């Protein structure tokens, strides 16, 4: 039973489209995250979210928005996709402390 699962694993789409990536965790964690791993393999935090607070990395374009229907889910919506959005996106979850994050397998997004 996968602890953090994200779908789809691969996403190929055209520029200008709107897409969503889903994430679910069954660990009972309070906090969920979205990361972007760029072409240089850096892991960059995009959002962290718990039921009280959304923390947004200020470098993230407002075309990206997290949506959390409940504590176990944090979906990522991306509007007006651009070529530069091509990357691997990881979802993760953790308790506040210790902040040991458990990751999903990643979604490879290719924007053509």
């Amino acid at each position, binding site marked *: 039973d996968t602890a*953090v699962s994200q779908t789809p694993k691969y996403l190929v789409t055209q520029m200008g489209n709107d897409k969503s990536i889903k994430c679910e965790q069954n660990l009972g964690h309070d906090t969920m995250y979205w990361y972007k791993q760029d072409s*240089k*393999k*850096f*892991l960059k*935090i995009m959002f*962290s979210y718990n039921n009280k607070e959304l*923390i947004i990395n200020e470098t993230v374009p407002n075309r990206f928005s997290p949506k959390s229907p409940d504590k176990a889910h944090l979906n990522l919506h991306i509007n007006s996709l651009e070529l530069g959005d091509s990357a691997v996106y*990881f979802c*993760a979850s953790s308790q*506040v*402390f*210790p*902040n*040991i*994050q*458990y*990751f*999903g*397998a*990643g979604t490879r997004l290719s924007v053509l």
Partner: protein
Amino acid sequence: DQQVKQNSPSLSVQEGRISILNCDYTNSMFDYFLWYKKYPAEGPTFLISISSIKDKNEDGRFTVFLNKSAKHLSLHIVPSQPGDSAVYFCAASDMDSNYQLIWGAGTKLIIKP
């Protein structure tokens, strides 16, 4: 400005020998450090952590050492096995930042048979 640096992009080690991965940080407020391992096409997986009140933490073949004065930590893997071939990320956090993880760029470890 990278607060957590892994200066070696890659490291090659003979099977059975010791692998030493290094990580330097600049923020003296960091008080909790973690190592993650990542295989291709998978998410990072937690390996081992250390609090700033300790200078060593051991878990099986993996030991993390923390030198606070030098702002340096290292991960030792003994003995190295082929399955250890992966990218290793160092991460750091502090209470003032609500324990948000700050990540290094990763070091690719290759274990040669």
